[in-house]
């Protein structure tokens, strides 16, 4: 390892410069505004958590965790997601509050990257958790809220794909019989390796009907009509329940007016292993990576000794900012450049203008080396220079 350059940052860490900061603030305010109107309360959790508790529950790959030791030698992690910490809070500090709880967060999370540039190791996530509600209405609520948030942020072209990991699990178990073999199949889906999946299915000792059922899973992508196809693949009681819930979900999204954004995709599996039911991802048409994701996690709360069904979503603010309008023009502030003898006047003017919300910089003339270069950074410049101002002759 060579000595870093003086201006170098650790791998994956980024500075947020003013233009992007403004854009993000703007989006953040809109999102927070909408989320609050739906009755979600924002909260914060610590940046550091114990590796054994939140680190373990968070389902982020171990090699992606930033780990450090505290003074007593306990292993800590920089929080890799917000769902696990909020589950911890819901089960401890908020344990006397009745369910369902509606909580929201806007926090930076940390995931170590091994790859080249383009992937930050620290990024801001805005999201909600709806804890203690197992209904399809709850699933619909978080998806509808996510759509509303994206609308209000100004995103025009986006889509949401909805899958169901419980369905996949049930289908696999009903065909291959045990968890180990189901896990192998899940792994192919998770790795997005459909060629390997098909090959593996062909090599399994299964009836041709069951092989076809596994193959047909890959085609369960599309609108509400796919729910019927999905039931044909899994005509069991559990399958029926799942699909009834998804039907209700779709109807509810219809009522929210966001159904046209939604497609079903039963091949969707998330890297978050705590999901148990509905999972979903949001995509902007002009972005190569998912914008947001979420789903139902009915087992996570029990790890913190307050079992409860829950669902939620998280939006990557950096990806959303990129999808919205990365080349937005910077709006420039105004400036008043003064010489010392007119300082009083300058302060009066600048105070008045700031009071009505204008952005005004006050700059003493002798502090500027290159006046032309400096002036270019402003929309307009007022000079209060020399003794010829009012009342100072």
């Amino acid at each position, binding site marked *: 390892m060579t000595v870093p350059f003086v201006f170098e940052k650790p791998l994956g860490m980024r500075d947020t410069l003013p233009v992007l900061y403004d854009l993000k603030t703007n989006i953040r305010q809109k999102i927070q505004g909408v989320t609050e109107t739906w009755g979600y309360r924002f909260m914060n959790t610590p940046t550091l958590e114990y590796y054994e508790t939140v680190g373990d529950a968070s389902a982020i790959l171990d090699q992606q965790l930033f780990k450090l030791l505290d003074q007593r030698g306990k292993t800590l992690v920089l929080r890799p997601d917000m769902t696990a910490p909020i589950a911890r809070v819901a089960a401890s500090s908020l344990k006397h509050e009745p369910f369902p709880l509606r909580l929201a967060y806007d926090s930076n999370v940390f995931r170590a990257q091994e790859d080249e540039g383009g992937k930050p190791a620290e990024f801001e996530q805005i999201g909600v958790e709806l804890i203690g509600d197992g209904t399809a209405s709850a699933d619909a609520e978080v998806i509808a809220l996510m759509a509303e948030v994206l609308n209000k942020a100004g995103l025009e072209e986006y889509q949401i794909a909805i899958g169901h990991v419980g369905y996949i699990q049930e289908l696999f178990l009903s065909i291959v019989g045990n968890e180990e073999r189901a896990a192998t199949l899940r792994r192919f889906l998770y790795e997005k*390796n*459909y060629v390997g999946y098909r090959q593996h299915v062909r090599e399994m000792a299964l009836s041709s009907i069951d092989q076809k059922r596994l193959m047909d899973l890959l085609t369960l992508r599309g609108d509400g009509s796919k729910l019927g196809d999905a039931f044909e693949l899994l005509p069991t009681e559990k399958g029926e329940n799942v699909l009834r819930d998804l039907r209700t979900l779709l109807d509810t999204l219809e009522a929210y007016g966001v159904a046209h954004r939604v497609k079903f995709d039963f091949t969707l599996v998330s890297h978050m292993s705590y999901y148990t039911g509905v999972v979903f991802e949001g995509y*902007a048409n002009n972005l190569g990576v998912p914008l947001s994701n979420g789903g139902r996690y009915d087992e996570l709360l029990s790890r913190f000794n307050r079992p409860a069904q829950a669902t939620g979503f998280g939006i990557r603010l950096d990806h959303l900012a990129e999808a919205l309008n990365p080349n937005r023009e910077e709006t420039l502030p105004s400036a008043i450049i003064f010489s010392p003898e007119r300082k009083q006047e300058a302060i009066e003017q600048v105070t008045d203008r700031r009071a009505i919300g204008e952005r005004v910089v006050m700059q003493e003339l002798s502090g500027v080396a290159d006046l032309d270069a400096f002036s270019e950074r402003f929309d307009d410049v007022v000079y209060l220079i020399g003794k010829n101002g009012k009342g100072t002759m």
Partner: protein
Amino acid sequence: MLTMAMPKGRIFEEAVGLLRRAGYKLPPEFDDSRKLILEIEEENLRFILAKPMDVPTYVEHGVADVGIAGKDVMLEEERNVYEVLDLKISDCYLAVAGITDKPVAGVAPKIATKYPNVASNYFRQQGEQVEIIKLNGSIELAPLIGLADRIVDIVSTGRTLKENGLMETAFIESITSRFIVNPVSYRTKDRVIDDMVERLAAVVEGVDDYENR
């Protein structure tokens, strides 16, 4: 418009042939153009011509919606893309080779390869400790001149190995080209992509049937 990343070189011709048989009207000048970006307006397709090793990178970052990449490249690069279809072209395999097939003496045999990731994974699975040396081409040279004890490389006919007096010591995995898709495009442009996959699959399966006869 759908953007497709194509590998330049060996696989390109076969890939173009496959697309033509799937009913895509690609003009004749397509084959020997030196342009890196080609638009076929009537098919609403745009092709970018990339180094084979870089195809999954373009697709992962979403500047190409789909692409054609060898399984060897997929194994080496481990990119976050969908591997949707086995195109069954550019058939070859990854293998270990050396001057002799006798076990290599020494603490950690040196392995020269273009695929350090694949090689490292393979020898870890075998429980062998090795030292990987990354080369960019003419891998067969390494054992001949004493840089490495073994090589890991793709073998298609085995002629290069034979002519250089090398012999295969282990088979790693068979390789064909794959149709790969960006995870977002897979959902946002599903109609066009599903159609393309279906048409390609029909051609590929056809080849299969032909061979089985």
